[in-house]
Protein backbone atom coordinates (compact mmCIF):
# COMPACT_ATOMS: atom_id res chain seq x y z
CA UNK A 1 0.00 0.00 0.00
CA UNK A 2 2.64 2.52 1.07
CA UNK A 3 4.99 1.16 -1.57
CA UNK A 4 2.50 1.94 -4.32
CA UNK A 5 2.39 5.60 -3.28
CA UNK A 6 6.15 5.80 -3.60
CA UNK A 7 5.97 4.07 -6.95
CA UNK A 8 3.46 6.53 -8.23
CA UNK A 9 5.53 9.50 -7.10
CA UNK A 10 8.60 7.97 -8.68
CA UNK A 11 6.78 7.64 -12.01
CA UNK A 12 5.73 11.26 -11.74
CA UNK A 13 9.36 12.10 -10.95
CA UNK A 14 8.25 13.76 -7.76
CA UNK A 15 9.57 13.83 -4.21
CA UNK A 16 6.94 13.14 -1.62
CA UNK A 17 5.92 15.47 1.17
CA UNK A 18 5.59 13.61 4.47
CA UNK A 19 4.58 15.95 7.28
CA UNK A 20 4.69 14.89 10.92
CA UNK A 21 2.33 16.31 13.52
CA UNK A 22 1.59 15.08 17.04
CA UNK A 23 -1.97 14.08 17.74
CA UNK A 24 -3.46 15.89 20.73
CA UNK A 25 -1.52 19.07 20.14
CA UNK A 26 -2.64 21.59 21.12
CA UNK A 27 -5.91 19.66 21.63
CA UNK A 28 -7.31 16.49 20.12
CA UNK A 29 -9.90 18.27 17.98
CA UNK A 30 -7.45 20.92 16.81
CA UNK A 31 -4.89 18.32 15.79
CA UNK A 32 -7.59 16.61 13.73
CA UNK A 33 -8.06 19.82 11.81
CA UNK A 34 -4.30 20.01 11.26
CA UNK A 35 -4.31 16.55 9.71
CA UNK A 36 -7.18 17.48 7.40
CA UNK A 37 -5.39 20.69 6.53
CA UNK A 38 -2.19 18.82 5.71
CA UNK A 39 -4.18 16.44 3.53
CA UNK A 40 -5.60 19.39 1.61
CA UNK A 41 -2.19 20.96 1.20
CA UNK A 42 -0.48 18.12 -0.55
CA UNK A 43 0.73 15.65 2.07
CA UNK A 44 1.50 12.42 0.20
CA UNK A 45 1.90 10.47 3.40
CA UNK A 46 0.86 11.64 6.83
CA UNK A 47 2.95 10.95 9.90
CA UNK A 48 0.90 11.03 13.06
CA UNK A 49 2.96 11.23 16.23
CA UNK A 50 1.50 9.68 19.36
CA UNK A 51 3.04 11.59 22.26
CA UNK A 52 5.12 9.60 24.76
CA UNK A 53 6.22 10.79 28.19
CA UNK A 54 9.91 10.18 27.52
CA UNK A 55 10.69 10.91 23.88
CA UNK A 56 14.47 10.41 23.80
CA UNK A 57 14.80 10.87 20.04
CA UNK A 58 12.99 14.20 20.06
CA UNK A 59 14.17 17.77 20.50
CA UNK A 60 12.50 20.54 22.52
CA UNK A 61 9.66 21.36 20.07
CA UNK A 62 8.19 17.86 19.93
CA UNK A 63 8.91 17.35 23.64
CA UNK A 64 6.85 20.42 24.50
CA UNK A 65 4.02 19.48 22.17
CA UNK A 66 3.98 15.98 23.70
CA UNK A 67 3.79 17.39 27.20
CA UNK A 68 0.82 19.58 26.23
CA UNK A 69 -1.04 16.61 24.75
CA UNK A 70 -0.32 14.30 27.69
CA UNK A 71 -1.20 16.90 30.32
CA UNK A 72 -4.63 17.09 28.70
CA UNK A 73 -4.87 13.35 29.31
CA UNK A 74 -4.48 12.03 25.76
CA UNK A 75 -5.03 8.26 25.46
CA UNK A 76 -4.01 5.91 22.66
CA UNK A 77 -7.64 4.86 22.37
CA UNK A 78 -8.60 8.49 21.57
CA UNK A 79 -5.89 8.67 18.93
CA UNK A 80 -7.37 5.73 17.08
CA UNK A 81 -10.85 7.16 17.53
CA UNK A 82 -9.81 10.49 16.04
CA UNK A 83 -8.05 8.87 13.10
CA UNK A 84 -11.00 6.62 12.47
CA UNK A 85 -13.29 9.68 12.25
CA UNK A 86 -11.27 11.28 9.46
CA UNK A 87 -9.52 8.37 7.79
CA UNK A 88 -11.43 8.71 4.54
CA UNK A 89 -10.14 12.23 4.08
CA UNK A 90 -6.50 11.48 4.90
CA UNK A 91 -3.63 10.34 2.72
CA UNK A 92 -2.03 7.04 3.80
CA UNK A 93 -1.22 7.47 7.45
CA UNK A 94 1.76 6.24 9.44
CA UNK A 95 2.02 6.34 13.20
CA UNK A 96 5.26 7.40 14.80
CA UNK A 97 5.65 6.63 18.48
CA UNK A 98 7.82 4.91 21.05
CA UNK A 99 7.81 1.21 21.75
CA UNK A 100 6.37 1.25 25.25
CA UNK A 101 3.01 2.45 23.98
CA UNK A 102 2.82 -0.53 21.62
CA UNK A 103 4.06 -2.91 24.28
CA UNK A 104 1.79 -1.76 27.09
CA UNK A 105 -1.32 -1.67 24.91
CA UNK A 106 -0.56 -5.20 23.80
CA UNK A 107 1.27 -5.65 20.50
CA UNK A 108 -1.56 -7.48 18.74
CA UNK A 109 -4.17 -5.15 20.13
CA UNK A 110 -2.23 -2.06 19.09
CA UNK A 111 -1.67 -3.37 15.57
CA UNK A 112 -5.30 -4.38 15.11
CA UNK A 113 -6.68 -1.10 16.40
CA UNK A 114 -4.25 0.91 14.31
CA UNK A 115 -5.25 -0.95 11.16
CA UNK A 116 -8.91 -0.46 11.96
CA UNK A 117 -8.33 3.27 12.29
CA UNK A 118 -6.91 3.31 8.79
CA UNK A 119 -3.24 3.38 9.78
CA UNK A 120 -0.98 1.81 7.17
CA UNK A 121 2.34 1.70 8.94
CA UNK A 122 4.30 2.46 12.09
CA UNK A 123 7.69 4.00 12.76
CA UNK A 124 9.14 3.30 16.20
CA UNK A 125 12.42 5.13 16.79
CA UNK A 126 13.47 3.05 19.80
CA UNK A 127 12.63 -0.33 18.29
CA UNK A 128 15.70 -1.85 16.70
CA UNK A 129 15.49 -4.66 14.15
CA UNK A 130 17.05 -6.97 16.74
CA UNK A 131 14.16 -6.47 19.18
CA UNK A 132 11.36 -6.29 16.61
CA UNK A 133 10.52 -9.98 16.24
CA UNK A 134 7.50 -9.98 18.57
CA UNK A 135 6.07 -6.80 17.10
CA UNK A 136 6.54 -7.96 13.51
CA UNK A 137 4.77 -11.23 14.29
CA UNK A 138 1.92 -9.42 16.05
CA UNK A 139 1.43 -6.77 13.36
CA UNK A 140 1.73 -8.94 10.28
CA UNK A 141 -1.33 -8.48 8.02
CA UNK A 142 -2.30 -5.39 10.03
CA UNK A 143 0.23 -2.58 9.57
CA UNK A 144 3.64 -2.21 7.95
CA UNK A 145 6.76 -1.41 9.96
CA UNK A 146 9.25 1.12 8.71
CA UNK A 147 12.70 1.09 10.27
CA UNK A 148 15.19 3.92 10.56
CA UNK A 149 18.78 4.11 9.40
CA UNK A 150 21.27 6.67 10.69
CA UNK A 151 24.52 8.20 9.42
CA UNK A 152 26.30 6.05 12.00
CA UNK A 153 24.78 2.81 10.65
CA UNK A 154 27.34 0.62 8.91
CA UNK A 155 26.74 -0.64 5.39
CA UNK A 156 26.01 -4.07 6.78
CA UNK A 157 23.39 -2.70 9.18
CA UNK A 158 21.75 -0.63 6.48
CA UNK A 159 21.37 -3.76 4.34
CA UNK A 160 19.96 -5.71 7.27
CA UNK A 161 17.52 -2.94 8.19
CA UNK A 162 16.50 -2.50 4.57
CA UNK A 163 15.54 -6.13 4.46
CA UNK A 164 13.38 -5.78 7.56
CA UNK A 165 11.83 -2.46 6.64
CA UNK A 166 8.55 -2.48 4.81
CA UNK A 167 7.95 -0.20 1.78
CA UNK A 168 10.67 2.35 2.50
CA UNK A 169 13.59 3.34 4.73
CA UNK A 170 13.49 6.31 7.07
CA UNK A 171 16.88 8.05 6.90
CA UNK A 172 17.78 10.10 9.96
CA UNK A 173 19.63 13.01 8.36
CA UNK A 174 22.11 13.63 11.16
CA UNK A 175 23.33 12.40 14.52
CA UNK A 176 20.98 14.11 16.90
CA UNK A 177 17.38 14.58 17.94
CA UNK A 178 14.49 15.99 15.94
CA UNK A 179 14.28 19.75 15.47
CA UNK A 180 15.00 22.35 12.80
CA UNK A 181 18.64 23.05 11.93
CA UNK A 182 19.84 26.10 10.04
CA UNK A 183 22.05 23.96 7.89
CA UNK A 184 22.26 20.24 7.39
CA UNK A 185 25.78 18.84 7.63
CA UNK A 186 27.52 17.77 4.42
CA UNK A 187 27.53 14.26 5.79
CA UNK A 188 23.74 14.12 5.28
CA UNK A 189 24.18 14.11 1.53
CA UNK A 190 26.99 11.57 1.62
CA UNK A 191 24.84 9.40 3.85
CA UNK A 192 21.79 9.52 1.57
CA UNK A 193 23.91 8.52 -1.43
CA UNK A 194 25.33 5.66 0.60
CA UNK A 195 21.87 4.43 1.58
CA UNK A 196 20.74 4.71 -2.02
CA UNK A 197 23.60 2.50 -3.13
CA UNK A 198 22.70 -0.14 -0.53
CA UNK A 199 18.97 -0.50 -1.01
CA UNK A 200 16.45 -0.80 -3.79
CA UNK A 201 13.68 0.41 -1.52
CA UNK A 202 12.53 4.04 -1.61
CA UNK A 203 14.02 6.30 1.01
CA UNK A 204 12.67 9.24 2.95
CA UNK A 205 14.73 11.70 4.93
CA UNK A 206 13.80 13.42 8.18
CA UNK A 207 15.23 15.31 11.19
CA UNK A 208 16.36 18.94 11.02
CA UNK A 209 14.59 19.95 7.80
CA UNK A 210 12.83 23.33 7.75
CA UNK A 211 13.82 25.27 4.64
CA UNK A 212 13.36 25.41 0.93
CA UNK A 213 17.14 25.45 0.28
CA UNK A 214 17.49 22.21 2.22
CA UNK A 215 14.60 20.67 0.30
CA UNK A 216 16.18 21.67 -3.00
CA UNK A 217 19.39 19.93 -2.05
CA UNK A 218 17.63 16.85 -0.71
CA UNK A 219 15.16 16.40 -3.53
CA UNK A 220 17.48 14.62 -5.96
CA UNK A 221 18.65 12.28 -3.20
CA UNK A 222 15.45 11.22 -1.54
CA UNK A 223 11.99 9.95 -2.47
CA UNK A 224 10.34 11.60 0.48
CA UNK A 225 10.97 14.52 2.80
CA UNK A 226 9.74 14.57 6.39
CA UNK A 227 9.14 17.77 8.34
CA UNK A 228 7.92 17.86 11.92
CA UNK A 229 9.34 20.35 14.41
CA UNK A 230 9.39 23.28 11.99
CA UNK A 231 5.79 22.55 11.08
CA UNK A 232 4.76 22.54 14.74
CA UNK A 233 6.64 25.79 15.24
CA UNK A 234 4.86 27.43 12.32
CA UNK A 235 1.52 26.25 13.71
CA UNK A 236 2.29 27.43 17.23
CA UNK A 237 3.44 30.90 16.19
CA UNK A 238 -0.06 32.19 15.37
CA UNK A 239 -2.55 33.29 18.02
CA UNK A 240 -5.79 31.97 16.53
CA UNK A 241 -6.56 28.57 15.12
CA UNK A 242 -7.43 30.03 11.73
CA UNK A 243 -4.07 31.76 11.54
CA UNK A 244 -2.30 28.64 12.72
CA UNK A 245 -3.82 26.62 9.91
CA UNK A 246 -2.92 29.36 7.46
CA UNK A 247 0.64 29.25 8.75
CA UNK A 248 0.79 25.56 7.94
CA UNK A 249 -0.38 26.24 4.42
CA UNK A 250 2.23 28.99 4.02
CA UNK A 251 4.97 26.85 5.53
CA UNK A 252 4.30 24.00 3.12
CA UNK A 253 4.22 26.32 0.14
CA UNK A 254 7.48 27.93 1.17
CA UNK A 255 9.07 24.54 1.65
CA UNK A 256 8.27 23.67 -1.92
CA UNK A 257 8.53 19.89 -1.75
Amino acid at each position, binding site marked *: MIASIFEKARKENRTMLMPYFPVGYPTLSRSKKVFLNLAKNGADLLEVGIPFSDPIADGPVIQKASTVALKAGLKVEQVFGALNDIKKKLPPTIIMTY*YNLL*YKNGLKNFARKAAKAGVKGVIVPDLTVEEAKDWLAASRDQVETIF*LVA*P*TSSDARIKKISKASSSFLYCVSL*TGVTGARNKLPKSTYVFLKRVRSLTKKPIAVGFGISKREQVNELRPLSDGIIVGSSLIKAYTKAKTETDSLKNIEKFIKRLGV
Partner: protein
Amino acid sequence: MSLPDKRGHFGIFGGIFAPETLMEAIGELNKAYAKTKKDKGFQKELKELFKSYVGRPTPLFEATYLSRHYGSKILLKREDLAHTGAHKINNCIGQGLLARKMGKKRIIAETGAGQHGVATATAAAFFGMECHVFMGSEDIKRQAPNVQRMRLLGAEVIPVESGSKTLKDAMNEAMRDWVTNVRTTYYMIGSVAGPHPYPMMVRDFQAVIGKETKVQLKKMGLKANNIIACVGGGSNAIGIFYEFIDDKVNLIGVEAAGKGLSSGLHSAPLATGQPGVLHGSLSYLLQNKDGQVKEAHSIAAGLDYPGVGPEHSYLKDKGRVKYGTVTDTEAIRAFKLLSEKEGILPALESAHALAYLEKIEHKKNKVSVINLSGRGDKDLHILGEK
Protein backbone atom coordinates in the same frame (compact mmCIF):
# COMPACT_ATOMS: atom_id res chain seq x y z
CA MET B 1 23.45 -20.44 32.08
CA SER B 2 24.97 -17.10 32.86
CA LEU B 3 22.82 -14.08 32.14
CA PRO B 4 22.29 -11.93 30.22
CA ASP B 5 22.32 -13.66 26.83
CA LYS B 6 24.26 -12.22 23.92
CA ARG B 7 21.69 -9.53 23.26
CA GLY B 8 21.34 -8.56 26.86
CA HIS B 9 18.23 -10.47 27.89
CA PHE B 10 17.54 -11.61 31.42
CA GLY B 11 14.57 -13.82 30.61
CA ILE B 12 12.04 -11.50 28.99
CA PHE B 13 13.75 -8.42 30.45
CA GLY B 14 16.66 -6.27 29.27
CA GLY B 15 17.62 -6.03 25.61
CA ILE B 16 18.52 -3.04 23.46
CA PHE B 17 15.74 -0.54 22.76
CA ALA B 18 17.63 2.43 21.42
CA PRO B 19 17.65 4.85 18.51
CA GLU B 20 19.43 3.41 15.47
CA THR B 21 21.98 6.24 15.70
CA LEU B 22 23.39 4.60 18.83
CA MET B 23 23.49 1.03 17.62
CA GLU B 24 27.01 1.02 16.21
CA ALA B 25 28.31 2.76 19.35
CA ILE B 26 26.54 0.23 21.54
CA GLY B 27 28.04 -2.59 19.48
CA GLU B 28 31.48 -1.05 19.80
CA LEU B 29 31.07 -0.72 23.56
CA ASN B 30 29.97 -4.32 23.78
CA LYS B 31 33.07 -5.52 21.98
CA ALA B 32 35.41 -3.26 23.94
CA TYR B 33 33.92 -4.42 27.23
CA ALA B 34 34.10 -8.10 26.28
CA LYS B 35 37.80 -7.63 25.56
CA THR B 36 38.52 -6.15 28.99
CA LYS B 37 37.14 -9.26 30.66
CA LYS B 38 40.02 -11.25 29.21
CA ASP B 39 42.55 -8.44 29.41
CA LYS B 40 44.79 -9.19 32.40
CA GLY B 41 46.39 -5.74 32.23
CA PHE B 42 42.99 -4.07 32.47
CA GLN B 43 41.89 -6.22 35.39
CA LYS B 44 45.15 -5.62 37.22
CA GLU B 45 44.93 -1.86 36.77
CA LEU B 46 41.30 -1.87 37.92
CA LYS B 47 42.22 -3.85 41.03
CA GLU B 48 45.07 -1.51 41.81
CA LEU B 49 42.87 1.58 41.42
CA PHE B 50 40.17 0.03 43.59
CA LYS B 51 42.80 -0.35 46.28
CA SER B 52 44.86 2.80 46.07
CA TYR B 53 42.36 5.32 44.71
CA VAL B 54 38.94 4.10 45.86
CA GLY B 55 40.17 2.73 49.18
CA ARG B 56 38.94 -0.83 48.78
CA PRO B 57 38.26 -3.16 50.36
CA THR B 58 35.69 -1.21 52.34
CA PRO B 59 35.17 -2.56 55.86
CA LEU B 60 32.46 -4.98 56.90
CA PHE B 61 31.58 -3.44 60.23
CA GLU B 62 29.64 -4.95 63.08
CA ALA B 63 27.13 -2.40 64.31
CA THR B 64 27.10 -3.25 67.99
CA TYR B 65 24.23 -1.00 69.01
CA LEU B 66 22.01 -2.18 66.19
CA SER B 67 22.95 -5.79 66.97
CA ARG B 68 21.86 -5.34 70.58
CA HIS B 69 18.81 -3.36 69.52
CA TYR B 70 17.55 -6.06 67.19
CA GLY B 71 18.94 -9.06 69.08
CA SER B 72 20.93 -10.45 66.15
CA LYS B 73 24.16 -9.71 64.37
CA ILE B 74 23.98 -6.66 62.10
CA LEU B 75 26.88 -6.00 59.76
CA LEU B 76 27.33 -2.92 57.60
CA LYS B 77 29.21 -3.07 54.31
CA ARG B 78 30.75 0.38 54.44
CA GLU B 79 30.53 1.64 50.85
CA ASP B 80 30.06 5.07 52.41
CA LEU B 81 33.78 4.94 53.14
CA ALA B 82 34.75 4.51 49.50
CA HIS B 83 36.26 7.55 47.79
CA THR B 84 33.55 10.15 47.00
CA GLY B 85 31.32 8.61 49.67
CA ALA B 86 29.32 6.01 47.82
CA HIS B 87 29.58 2.77 45.85
CA LYS B 88 29.09 4.69 42.59
CA ILE B 89 32.85 5.21 42.22
CA ASN B 90 33.42 1.46 41.60
CA ASN B 91 31.51 1.63 38.36
CA CYS B 92 32.97 4.97 37.30
CA ILE B 93 36.57 3.84 37.71
CA GLY B 94 35.74 0.70 35.71
CA GLN B 95 33.95 2.54 32.93
CA GLY B 96 36.56 5.33 33.01
CA LEU B 97 39.30 2.82 32.32
CA LEU B 98 37.20 1.36 29.52
CA ALA B 99 36.48 4.80 28.03
CA ARG B 100 40.21 5.53 28.04
CA LYS B 101 40.86 2.23 26.26
CA MET B 102 38.26 3.21 23.67
CA GLY B 103 39.96 6.56 23.16
CA LYS B 104 36.97 8.62 24.32
CA LYS B 105 37.70 12.08 25.69
CA ARG B 106 34.23 13.37 26.44
CA ILE B 107 32.14 11.79 29.20
CA ILE B 108 28.46 12.40 29.85
CA ALA B 109 26.36 11.09 32.71
CA GLU B 110 22.97 11.45 34.36
CA THR B 111 22.62 11.84 38.06
CA GLY B 112 19.83 11.83 40.63
CA ALA B 113 21.24 12.26 44.12
CA GLY B 114 24.45 13.52 42.59
CA GLN B 115 26.47 10.57 43.87
CA HIS B 116 26.95 9.13 40.40
CA GLY B 117 27.57 12.63 39.06
CA VAL B 118 30.30 13.20 41.62
CA ALA B 119 31.81 9.79 40.93
CA THR B 120 31.75 10.45 37.18
CA ALA B 121 33.28 13.90 37.62
CA THR B 122 35.94 12.32 39.81
CA ALA B 123 36.77 9.61 37.28
CA ALA B 124 36.80 12.16 34.46
CA ALA B 125 39.21 14.36 36.41
CA PHE B 126 41.38 11.36 37.21
CA PHE B 127 41.51 10.11 33.61
CA GLY B 128 41.77 13.60 32.13
CA MET B 129 38.45 13.70 30.30
CA GLU B 130 35.88 16.40 29.68
CA CYS B 131 32.74 15.81 31.76
CA HIS B 132 29.11 16.90 31.44
CA VAL B 133 26.55 15.80 34.00
CA PHE B 134 22.80 16.06 33.39
CA MET B 135 20.78 16.64 36.54
CA GLY B 136 17.11 17.46 37.05
CA SER B 137 16.63 20.99 38.34
CA GLU B 138 14.55 19.59 41.21
CA ASP B 139 17.52 17.41 42.24
CA ILE B 140 19.94 20.33 41.84
CA LYS B 141 17.88 22.11 44.50
CA ARG B 142 17.76 19.23 46.95
CA GLN B 143 21.34 18.01 46.50
CA ALA B 144 23.22 21.29 46.37
CA PRO B 145 26.43 20.05 48.03
CA ASN B 146 26.96 17.44 45.33
CA VAL B 147 26.39 20.02 42.60
CA GLN B 148 29.15 22.10 44.13
CA ARG B 149 31.43 19.08 44.35
CA MET B 150 30.91 18.24 40.67
CA ARG B 151 31.71 21.80 39.66
CA LEU B 152 34.85 21.83 41.81
CA LEU B 153 35.91 18.61 40.10
CA GLY B 154 35.75 20.43 36.79
CA ALA B 155 32.48 19.00 35.47
CA GLU B 156 29.75 20.99 33.84
CA VAL B 157 26.40 20.38 35.53
CA ILE B 158 23.54 20.81 33.06
CA PRO B 159 20.13 21.47 34.65
CA VAL B 160 17.25 19.51 33.10
CA GLU B 161 13.91 21.29 33.17
CA SER B 162 11.69 18.77 31.40
CA GLY B 163 9.16 16.39 32.96
CA SER B 164 9.52 15.76 36.68
CA LYS B 165 12.96 17.44 36.64
CA THR B 166 14.54 14.42 38.32
CA LEU B 167 16.65 11.39 37.42
CA LYS B 168 14.37 10.06 34.67
CA ASP B 169 14.48 13.34 32.80
CA ALA B 170 18.22 13.70 33.36
CA MET B 171 18.62 10.31 31.70
CA ASN B 172 16.41 11.35 28.77
CA GLU B 173 18.59 14.38 28.25
CA ALA B 174 21.82 12.40 28.55
CA MET B 175 20.53 9.99 25.89
CA ARG B 176 19.72 12.95 23.62
CA ASP B 177 23.25 14.26 24.07
CA TRP B 178 24.62 10.81 23.33
CA VAL B 179 22.59 10.55 20.13
CA THR B 180 23.96 13.95 19.11
CA ASN B 181 27.63 13.44 20.02
CA VAL B 182 27.82 9.68 19.68
CA ARG B 183 31.06 9.66 17.71
CA THR B 184 33.13 11.41 20.39
CA THR B 185 31.25 10.74 23.58
CA TYR B 186 31.23 8.00 26.17
CA TYR B 187 27.97 7.70 28.09
CA MET B 188 28.73 6.62 31.64
CA ILE B 189 25.44 5.19 32.91
CA GLY B 190 25.41 5.01 36.69
CA SER B 191 22.99 2.20 37.32
CA VAL B 192 22.27 -1.31 36.11
CA ALA B 193 19.81 0.22 33.65
CA GLY B 194 20.01 1.35 30.02
CA PRO B 195 20.53 -0.76 26.91
CA HIS B 196 22.77 -3.82 26.96
CA PRO B 197 25.68 -4.02 27.84
CA TYR B 198 25.18 -1.44 30.59
CA PRO B 199 23.13 -3.56 33.04
CA MET B 200 25.71 -6.35 32.78
CA MET B 201 28.77 -4.11 32.77
CA VAL B 202 27.71 -1.96 35.72
CA ARG B 203 26.80 -5.12 37.64
CA ASP B 204 30.23 -6.60 36.96
CA PHE B 205 32.03 -3.47 38.17
CA GLN B 206 29.86 -3.32 41.29
CA ALA B 207 30.17 -7.03 42.00
CA VAL B 208 33.35 -6.22 43.92
CA ILE B 209 31.08 -5.28 46.85
CA GLY B 210 29.69 -8.79 47.20
CA LYS B 211 33.02 -10.48 46.51
CA GLU B 212 34.65 -8.56 49.34
CA THR B 213 31.71 -9.19 51.64
CA LYS B 214 32.02 -12.93 51.09
CA VAL B 215 35.72 -12.94 51.94
CA GLN B 216 35.15 -10.73 54.98
CA LEU B 217 32.33 -12.92 56.30
CA LYS B 218 34.54 -15.95 55.96
CA LYS B 219 37.34 -14.24 57.87
CA MET B 220 34.89 -13.40 60.65
CA GLY B 221 33.75 -17.01 60.65
CA LEU B 222 30.19 -15.98 59.82
CA LYS B 223 27.52 -16.87 57.32
CA ALA B 224 24.95 -14.31 56.30
CA ASN B 225 21.25 -15.13 56.67
CA ASN B 226 20.07 -11.88 55.10
CA ILE B 227 21.68 -9.44 52.72
CA ILE B 228 19.74 -6.20 52.39
CA ALA B 229 20.24 -3.33 49.96
CA CYS B 230 18.18 -0.43 48.67
CA VAL B 231 17.01 -0.47 45.06
CA GLY B 232 16.58 2.57 42.86
CA GLY B 233 18.05 1.52 39.54
CA GLY B 234 19.64 -1.19 41.64
CA SER B 235 23.41 -1.02 41.19
CA ASN B 236 24.46 -1.29 44.83
CA ALA B 237 21.95 -4.08 45.37
CA ILE B 238 23.06 -6.18 42.42
CA GLY B 239 26.65 -5.35 43.42
CA ILE B 240 26.29 -7.03 46.80
CA PHE B 241 23.81 -9.75 45.69
CA TYR B 242 25.58 -11.07 42.63
CA GLU B 243 28.28 -13.07 44.40
CA PHE B 244 25.63 -14.70 46.61
CA ILE B 245 23.06 -15.59 43.96
CA ASP B 246 23.79 -19.32 44.16
CA ASP B 247 24.24 -19.37 47.96
CA LYS B 248 21.72 -20.16 50.63
CA VAL B 249 21.01 -16.66 51.87
CA ASN B 250 17.99 -14.35 51.78
CA LEU B 251 18.60 -11.51 49.38
CA ILE B 252 16.34 -8.55 50.03
CA GLY B 253 16.01 -5.46 47.83
CA VAL B 254 14.26 -2.44 49.30
CA GLU B 255 12.39 -0.01 47.10
CA ALA B 256 11.25 3.44 48.17
CA ALA B 257 7.59 3.54 49.18
CA GLY B 258 7.77 7.33 49.42
CA LYS B 259 4.60 8.62 51.05
CA GLY B 260 3.15 5.10 51.00
CA LEU B 261 2.35 2.68 48.18
CA SER B 262 -1.35 3.55 48.28
CA SER B 263 -0.60 7.28 47.94
CA GLY B 264 0.77 6.74 44.44
CA LEU B 265 3.78 8.85 45.45
CA HIS B 266 6.56 6.27 45.53
CA SER B 267 9.40 4.73 43.56
CA ALA B 268 8.50 1.06 43.72
CA PRO B 269 8.15 -0.38 40.19
CA LEU B 270 8.93 -3.92 41.36
CA ALA B 271 6.16 -3.75 43.96
CA THR B 272 3.52 -2.02 41.87
CA GLY B 273 4.65 -1.63 38.24
CA GLN B 274 4.30 -3.68 35.09
CA PRO B 275 6.90 -4.59 32.45
CA GLY B 276 7.66 -1.77 30.03
CA VAL B 277 10.43 -0.16 28.02
CA LEU B 278 12.26 2.92 29.26
CA HIS B 279 15.80 4.12 28.62
CA GLY B 280 16.88 1.23 26.48
CA SER B 281 15.63 -1.88 28.22
CA LEU B 282 12.54 -3.81 29.21
CA SER B 283 11.89 -3.98 32.93
CA TYR B 284 9.28 -3.30 35.58
CA LEU B 285 8.12 0.27 35.25
CA LEU B 286 5.79 2.77 36.89
CA GLN B 287 3.39 3.59 34.08
CA ASN B 288 -0.26 4.22 33.38
CA LYS B 289 -2.53 1.82 31.46
CA ASP B 290 -1.44 3.37 28.19
CA GLY B 291 2.29 2.99 28.80
CA GLN B 292 3.02 6.60 29.69
CA VAL B 293 5.71 6.63 32.35
CA LYS B 294 4.62 7.92 35.74
CA GLU B 295 6.64 10.23 37.91
CA ALA B 296 8.31 8.60 40.87
CA HIS B 297 8.65 9.99 44.35
CA SER B 298 11.12 9.40 47.13
CA ILE B 299 12.78 11.55 49.73
CA ALA B 300 15.99 9.90 48.53
CA ALA B 301 16.88 11.46 45.20
CA GLY B 302 18.93 8.41 44.25
CA LEU B 303 15.85 6.18 44.46
CA ASP B 304 13.54 8.62 42.71
CA TYR B 305 13.25 6.68 39.45
CA PRO B 306 10.21 4.99 37.85
CA GLY B 307 12.24 2.11 36.41
CA VAL B 308 14.62 -0.51 37.72
CA GLY B 309 17.46 -2.57 36.28
CA PRO B 310 16.24 -5.52 34.16
CA GLU B 311 18.15 -8.10 36.16
CA HIS B 312 16.16 -7.15 39.26
CA SER B 313 12.94 -7.72 37.33
CA TYR B 314 14.25 -11.14 36.38
CA LEU B 315 15.31 -11.98 39.93
CA LYS B 316 11.93 -10.86 41.24
CA ASP B 317 9.96 -13.02 38.82
CA LYS B 318 12.26 -15.94 39.47
CA GLY B 319 11.71 -15.49 43.18
CA ARG B 320 15.42 -15.45 43.96
CA VAL B 321 15.39 -11.98 45.50
CA LYS B 322 12.65 -10.70 47.75
CA TYR B 323 11.73 -7.08 47.20
CA GLY B 324 10.18 -5.00 49.95
CA THR B 325 9.47 -1.32 50.48
CA VAL B 326 10.20 1.38 53.03
CA THR B 327 8.50 4.79 53.29
CA ASP B 328 10.15 8.21 53.59
CA THR B 329 9.24 8.34 57.26
CA GLU B 330 10.64 4.89 58.03
CA ALA B 331 13.86 5.77 56.22
CA ILE B 332 14.29 8.96 58.24
CA ARG B 333 13.78 7.02 61.46
CA ALA B 334 16.50 4.57 60.42
CA PHE B 335 18.76 7.46 59.45
CA LYS B 336 18.41 8.96 62.92
CA LEU B 337 18.98 5.66 64.65
CA LEU B 338 22.24 4.98 62.85
CA SER B 339 23.44 8.55 63.25
CA GLU B 340 22.72 8.78 66.95
CA LYS B 341 23.64 5.27 68.01
CA GLU B 342 26.47 4.25 65.67
CA GLY B 343 27.92 7.65 64.76
CA ILE B 344 27.40 7.04 61.04
CA LEU B 345 25.33 9.36 58.86
CA PRO B 346 23.95 7.10 56.11
CA ALA B 347 22.69 8.37 52.77
CA LEU B 348 18.89 8.52 52.71
CA GLU B 349 19.02 5.85 50.01
CA SER B 350 20.95 3.47 52.28
CA ALA B 351 18.64 4.37 55.17
CA HIS B 352 15.91 2.49 53.26
CA ALA B 353 17.94 -0.72 53.54
CA LEU B 354 18.56 -0.05 57.24
CA ALA B 355 14.88 0.59 57.87
CA TYR B 356 14.06 -2.86 56.54
CA LEU B 357 15.66 -4.35 59.65
CA GLU B 358 12.37 -3.44 61.32
CA LYS B 359 10.56 -5.82 58.99
CA ILE B 360 12.54 -9.03 59.25
CA GLU B 361 12.64 -11.65 61.93
CA HIS B 362 15.68 -11.45 64.23
CA LYS B 363 17.26 -14.25 66.21
CA LYS B 364 20.37 -14.28 68.31
CA ASN B 365 22.49 -16.35 65.96
CA LYS B 366 21.24 -14.74 62.73
CA VAL B 367 23.47 -12.50 60.64
CA SER B 368 22.17 -9.65 58.49
CA VAL B 369 24.38 -7.66 56.17
CA ILE B 370 23.25 -4.18 55.11
CA ASN B 371 24.84 -2.54 52.14
CA LEU B 372 25.53 0.95 53.42
CA SER B 373 25.82 2.27 49.90
CA GLY B 374 26.63 5.90 50.69
CA ARG B 375 27.10 8.56 53.28
CA GLY B 376 24.50 11.11 54.24
CA ASP B 377 26.34 14.42 54.11
CA LYS B 378 24.53 15.32 50.90
CA ASP B 379 21.15 14.99 52.63
CA LEU B 380 21.78 17.23 55.62
CA HIS B 381 19.54 20.04 54.50
CA ILE B 382 16.64 17.67 53.76
CA LEU B 383 17.00 16.16 57.21
CA GLY B 384 17.41 19.55 58.77
CA GLU B 385 13.85 20.26 57.66
CA LYS B 386 12.45 17.10 59.23
